[in-house]
């Protein structure tokens, strides 16, 4: 059938967030007040009409599984299809596959069972809020084997360095994939591939002891594949380092960015939590801040992102900071350029100041 199935492949994503990824994978890193990075990819897949999504994950996936649960909050708890979290479970004694090919080999059933003829593959570090219907139409229309989703950037940012560049010909045809840092057409690590081509390339990779499906299966075989591209021109960003993570969280305090990421399309879905509305007490002083529900604010907060259930007590000052779930900031604390992971509590009167290039990061559940 001319429909897509989804695959979120986390095998080759590094734990780029230092303290924030000591105990969780990057895809499960909190972002923008109430989300995890994976929410954007998952939501985009659901918006694109995808009804089955698999997640290839190989380590630190407890927090990811806790977050996505049955998939119900993305309408992915279904009798047929739905969400499949596929951690390593290798039991085939004849298995010689390596790298992410082990996931493809050991989860071949996932692809065979689906009626979809195309697979939308993505990582978790490309953040946008969009349906990929148009990209899929382009893929079908051009009868491509592979369609790469690209974005054009005006300015080269540090997080763009590791993205492949796409040289395009007529009608988006992909001529080359390079590391040319002057080329502003970036591959987003999101692509659509025909299922039968995918399965054929998987077999080929395994036979030749390859360990990276996209590099060895797709990129090395470019000449034999009908490869096209589709450019996404809405709001987007990449998060793949502490610096880009911090900068993009803070950038969302620009009204234009906030509007474009959250309101230009349907809402981004995330785990539902049942927190009460934010409570601003009489001494609260809040400016330029994103707040998720469950926060209770007595102190002053400026240019910051507060996740669910954060308490800022009287006389505390929070500036240019990212404060994750259920942190407590006591009386008279002063925080600037700080990232606090979940459940951190900062006791009275202390001052912590980081820099915007190197924010001061505090790991989960610390009491300082």
């Amino acid at each position, binding site marked *: 059938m001319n429909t897509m199935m989804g695959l979120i492949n986390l095998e080759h994503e590094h734990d780029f967030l230092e303290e924030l990824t000591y105990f969780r994978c990057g895809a499960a890193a909190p972002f923008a*007040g*109430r989300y995890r990075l994976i929410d954007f990819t998952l939501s985009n897949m659901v918006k694109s009409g995808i009804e089955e999504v698999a997640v290839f994950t190989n380590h630190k996936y407890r927090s990811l599984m806790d977050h996505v649960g049955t998939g119900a909050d993305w309408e992915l708890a279904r009798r047929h299809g739905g969400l499949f979290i596929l951690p390593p479970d290798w039991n085939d004694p004849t298995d010689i596959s390596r790298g992410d090919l082990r996931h493809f080999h050991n989860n071949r059933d996932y692809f065979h069972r689906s009626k979809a003829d195309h697979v939308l593959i993505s990582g978790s570090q490309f953040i946008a809020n969009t349906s990929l219907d148009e990209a899929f139409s382009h893929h079908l229309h051009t009868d491509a084997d592979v369609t790469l989703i690209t974005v054009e950037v005006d300015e080269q940012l540090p997080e763009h360095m590791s993205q492949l560049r796409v040289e395009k010909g007529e009608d988006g045809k992909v001529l080359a994939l390079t590391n040319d840092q002057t080329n502003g057409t970036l591959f987003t690590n999101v692509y659509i591939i025909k299922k039968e081509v995918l399965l054929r390339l998987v077999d080929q990779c395994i036979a030749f002891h390859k360990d990276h499906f996209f590099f060895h299966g797709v990129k090395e075989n470019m000449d034999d594949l009908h490869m096209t591209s589709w450019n996404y021109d809405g709001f987007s960003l990449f998060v793949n380092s502490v610096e880009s993570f911090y900068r993009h969280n803070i950038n969302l305090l620009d*009204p234009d960015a906030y509007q474009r990421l959250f309101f230009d399309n349907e809402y*981004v879905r*995330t785990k539902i939590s049942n927190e009460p*509305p*934010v409570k601003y007490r009489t001494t*609260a002083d809040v400016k330029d801040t994103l*707040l998720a*529900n469950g926060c209770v604010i007595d102190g002053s907060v400026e240019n910051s992102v507060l996740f669910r259930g954060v308490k800022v007590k009287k006389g505390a000052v929070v500036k240019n900071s990212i404060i994750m779930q259920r942190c407590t900031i006591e009386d008279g604390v002063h925080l600037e350029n700080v990232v606090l992971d979940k459940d951190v509590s900062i006791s009275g009167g202390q001052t912590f100041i980081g820099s915007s290039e190197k924010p001061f990061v505090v790991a989960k559940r610390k009491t300082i």
Partner: protein
Amino acid sequence: MKKRCVGMLLAGGEGKRLGLLTKNLAKPAVPFGGKYRIIDFTLSNCSNSGIYTVGVLTQYSPLELNKHIGIGKPWDLDRQSDGVTILSPYTAKEGGSWYQGTADAIYRNIHYIDQYDPEYVLVISGDHIYQMDYDAMIRHHEEKASDATISVIEVPWEEAPRFGILNTKDNLEIYEFDEKPAEPKSNLASMGIYVFNWRTLREYLLEDAAKSDSDHDFGKDVIPAMLNDEKRLYAYRYEGYWKDVGTIQSYWEANMDLLEEDLSVSLNNKSWRTYSQDTNFPPQFIDSAAEVENSLINSGSWISGTVKNSILFECIHVGRSSHVNESILHPHVKVGSGCEITRAIIMENVVIPDGTVIDGTTEPEPVVIDSAYIAQLT
């Protein structure tokens, strides 16, 4: 499928005195507290008290209410053998009619309760704001070996004539029920929360249904009949926050009460959560021109003006140089720039044009604003 207790939640009321607020929806479905609907408090009390078999009796304008309750997921009432069941009036072989009174509503659903063969039936209504452990009340009922237990709250003596008053002996045994007494003998007001032995109640419901001169009401008919027969009726004292949101004034006050700190209804109480249908709106944005003080604000809201002493539901816009004070803004309200809104309740989806002034301080009750009101302004 025997259950110890079945909860019967009366949610069919029109709430006439809430005027515009209940024009298109039942009183229990009226938005409350920035995120909730009135019925969420009783539904959450049920699940927090371990009562997972709940029949919700609906009648007046039930669409919003039915949609809100759905299969009961937010309250953990989506269950295989019981959970929440919507019980609407129905027709059968012998005809059918609307529910004639509170007792009649339960009478017509005897077959629903019988399925679970319960020891007790808890009768509650979906139009009060309070957090109460029904299980403690059931234990009290058991200790007293009552046939019926009625939850009571102490009210100021001067207000007692507005309530249904229960006169009790020292051991809380009820000997008289006084509906709105001119000269009250007690200040224990009935909260409209009852625990009955199902077998006893069943008999009284059958008897009451056969009487043509009955109003089929618990307070007026069933309880007096039980007292008359010298059944064991006890009061159960509830201490804590409880508010009937029957009028616009009391609805507004109950919302404002959430801004007070010392009330036992605390939305942030982790051990007694109030649950509701949650949404997937983005985090709220308080921008550089905004000022927010003593308020509750829900997700998806974007504030550029001044908000004080107010309750804002999801996806509210408050434009620049606008002042919102002592007001309740229902979901998706857009306030333009340079507006002054004081002591008002703005209904869902209303768009308030730039420069509008709405002042409810001179009215006896806060003003309720719908889109028709806005249309006649321009």
